[in-house]
């Protein structure tokens, strides 16, 4: 099981989402992708996409207006 951190701090929507979509395709099932974001819009569409795609998702607020979106690839 691998853990990949994707630094998207300072990137506006939809860049974090597109980067996450590309990255998750490279990962194996069971790997974790941790996307660091500070754009409030990505806070909404990133988890929404990952959930509809069927992955396990968690959002953790790491600071004021900064979040880690943790995606576990399930398929």
């Amino acid at each position, binding site marked *: 099981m691998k853990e990949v951190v994707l630094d998207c701090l300072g990137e506006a929507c939809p860049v974090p989402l597109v980067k996450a979509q590309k990255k998750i395709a490279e990962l194996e099932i069971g790997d974790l992708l941790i996307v660091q974001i500070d754009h409030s819009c990505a806070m*909404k569409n990133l988890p929404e996409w990952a959930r*509809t795609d069927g992955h396990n998702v968690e959002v953790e607020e790491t600071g004021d207006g900064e979040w*880690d979106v943790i995606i576990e690839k399930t398929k």
Partner: protein
Amino acid sequence: MGDEKNITASAPETAGSSIRRSSRTTVRKPKKDQILPGIAILMLIIVSGAGLSFISKQLAFFWITGNLFGFILQRARFCFTASMRDPYLTGGTSLTKAVLTAFAITTLGFAAIKYGAFISGAPIPGQSFIVPVSLATAAGGILFGIGMVIAGGCASGTLMRVGEGFGMQMLSLVFFVAGSLWAAHDFGWWQLNVIMKSKAVFLPDVFGWVGAVTIQLLIIAFLWIAADKWGKRKAEQSH
């Protein structure tokens, strides 16, 4: 106790951890207490509003509605850009449906205000905003759409995120203002040579008041159902 807490905290920002991470990538930064600055800013908003009401009642009203609009926009993570972009990018249509619902509510509200003025014989407010519709509208919409997706927000979204302290969009705002000034500078020419060549349509003149509201609501309902179907289909495809 700890487990119970995890179950009750169902909001996405505070959800308990069920995914096991081997390492924490960032040390949790100490949270600044924002309550005092918050109260100070709220006071400042109220005092400014009261001050503005001495100059003009309308100005104070705009100040209050502007602040409320910004607050709702930020808390709801509402984004007009995402509502148009996400159906294609992620297949998510929840914001699209939210925007359409807002359109439906404002349709009723505007119709009520305008009809109220119409039956009492007063001049109908806001009629100067009825402008000609033509291919220029569509061309402008496409240009605006490209711009807002690249900039990461439309007008309200950019302003809201500048308020949140998102640095990149302060840059967007500078060029937003620059672009708007340039457009305002050239607007006279476009108005005279392109826009005025087509007709302005006020729906109640064509379909009557009931007809106009019904038709507009039906179109919105149709788009809402289409957005809902699109979202469900996209979700099925990815499974």
